């Protein structure tokens, strides 16, 4: 092979590998991204059941029921709409009524939400960024209410995430 054809071969191999990688990325992106929705958005947009979502809002006061320590039910609200959530697992340390929360899981046919991970804010000061914005839209947020919304999440998951 000449120098030139070798170089050409090398470059086409490289492009091939990169092409495959780009394909992988695009395929995975189209398949695995999860959208963030607030309860009002779910109500307004008629999100179809079975969709994987991140649901964010406040834990509605007085709605947290713990059945046997691991089965938990609560309602997420943003003032505009409520979504009942069922979760099996241990809640994060800072999960509290009236506080911000982000749950990831699947919307059920009956409008409830089955969460497989629940994230609460990470520090007394902080509120998940998405929740802050969702609440702002609903006019439920006053600037500075929770201090800087430096959002730091501590997931509590049922499965080992890796």
């Amino acid at each position: 092979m000449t120098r030139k054809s070798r170089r050409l071969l090398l470059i086409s191999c490289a492009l091939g590998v990169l092409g495959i990688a780009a394909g992988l990325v695009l395929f995975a992106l189209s398949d695995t991204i999860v959208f963030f929705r607030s309860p009002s958005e779910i109500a307004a947009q008629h999100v179809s059941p079975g969709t994987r979502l991140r649901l964010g809002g406040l834990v509605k006061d007085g709605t947290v029921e713990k059945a046997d320590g691991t089965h938990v039910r609560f309602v997420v609200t943003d003032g505009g709409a409520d979504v009942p959530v069922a979760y099996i697992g241990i809640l994060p340390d800072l999960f509290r009524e009236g506080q911000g929360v982000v749950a990831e899981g699947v919307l059920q046919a009956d409008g409830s939400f089955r969460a497989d991970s629940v994230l609460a804010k990470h520090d007394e000061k902080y509120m998940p960024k998405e929740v802050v914005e969702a609440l702002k839209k609903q006019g439920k947020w006053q600037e500075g209410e929770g201090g800087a919304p430096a959002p730091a999440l501590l997931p509590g998951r049922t499965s080992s995430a890796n």
Partner: protein
Amino acid sequence: MIPETGHFALVLALAVALLQMVLPVWGARTNDAALMRVGPALAVAFAGFISLAFAALVAAYVQSDFSVLNVYQNSHSEMPLIYKITSAWGNHEGSMLLWVLVLGLFGAMVALFGSNLPQRLKANVLAVQASVAVAFLLFILLTSNPFLRLSPAPAEGQDLNPVLQDIGLAIHPPLLYLGYVGFSITFAFAVAALIDGRIDAAWARWVRPWALAAWAFLTVGIAMGSYWAYYELGWGGWWFWDPVENASLMPWFAGTALIHSAVVMEKRDALKVWTVLLAILAFSLSLLGTFLVRSGVLTSVHAFATDPARGVFILMILVAFIGGSLGLFALRAPMLRQGGIFAPVSREGALVLNNLLLTASAAAVFVGTLYPLALEAWNGAKITVGPPYFNFTVGLLMVPVVFVMPFGPLLAWKRGDIAGVAQRLMAAFGLAILAGLAVAYGQAGGPALAPIGIGLAAFVILGSVTDLAERAGLGRVPAATAWARLRGLPRAAYGTMLAHAGIGICLLGIVAETSWSSERIVGIKTGEGTTVGRYELTLERVEPRTGPNYRDVAAVFRIREGGVDRGTVTSSKRLFTARNMPTTESGIRTFGFGQLYVSMGDELAGGGIGIRAYWKPLVTLIWLGAVVMAFGGVLSLSDRRLRIGAPRPARARRNADAAPANPAPAE
């Protein structure tokens, strides 16, 4: 007086860095030896001033000097001494100071140990380094000054974020920064060489020890961060594809590619343009990581600060350095001479494939990390790119990397004999298949991918051993000769073998942990028990305790394995009083390479507590593998030929018959 001395030292360091940025380059331009000599002297002085500033900050923390705003905001007089020290860098301002400290120390090392470098290259390298230092010092002084004062001083501080009150904080950030910032040296080398327009095989030789050192630190730093998150965050995961983790993983991929392509450049004078580009990319990705973490654009545990002024400032640094260096690269790269040629099947070919896949992985992580940010900026849609994306893309890209790994070191330079290499790897391959079959038989109904993963891991480990055996001629020459050869092999050969085997070990851990972990989430009362894996856990008691700056409730479990007592494990919930913030301290017991992991949940209404218990077989191999990898890097580094700073007087040079760093049948 101490804080102000530190503050002044920091300001002086900026002045020194400005001179260091200008004078040596001027010297190199005018070929003035005296001016070039100023570079190393200033680099040492810079390191001295930064060390002084950092020491002053640590002293302020140790003394609980709440007249320093930073101390007031991140410390508490009742914290144990070790956390008082570590909280100096457990916050935005302090960690940036640590960043610059590491930068200064690396610069001083180049100044002191780079005696084998050409004077001009060295002067330019130090100047480029200084320009990075100037940018970050300005950032610190203008937006994140750790020496701002408070008067009157408050009586008590606001405490360190409890999640950070852990010994992991003492280790993880410094190691990670040693890695990140270490790539600033390779970056400086690349830019200096581009400025000078001279890039040849010798350049690769000079760069490689720095790349290796940075890579080894980064490897351990990432592993420590992973372990820290694993035991501190309390839900048993060890890698979350959190943007901050990704930020450290991207430079790792680029750095791994760099240490491999630098070998090709050194041995064959090929891949020059590519290697220089990688050196720039590795540091650019480190900067990007710093930006992502420091600007607070991400949703993450590590986002200490959300100050847009800071974000914009770092973004400007990012644009200036990445844009500037890539621009210079575009200008100069076409002028570089073509290097040696090689066949697709050859050592070079294998390394090119490795490079392609590693950079593709870095790109995949890059896209996954930044796509949500870009999309949100574009149309406001909020999405998450979660673990499935990363597992899928990076996982698939890594499989060929891992599979080809044993072939690389066995292939000859220029033109390799793939059939011959395959033959030599036959034994390793056969054993790996056996291991996979054994697993498939043994696990009876476990995940189908597990046997394949274990087989792959076994292939890599056995393959790297095969490489050593081949080098020694084991089985072809008399045992005594083989033994002598084995002992005579350069440390770099062992380094390569260990680094590759480390990947296999890590892979073993990952496959075992993901395939065969057992998990229990139950509510449990005192005296009751549950089983996880082979272990029975009984809740012995729940007791309140008091720590220096927290109160906690501890649950003590008795562990039994088949009725045999295996001691206890304790998990607790801590309430840090100053911030009124609870944390969970998980209880971990290591049995063999596996770990029993217990994490305590809320107390239940009807008495008892909720717990999460895991049995994670071979999980420690994940981090041990990384440590083995890094140790391989250090071993290569200690190879006589690459040893930094060994002066090369003529006599020693003649005797220096050290073998190649990635020893090979010659070119």
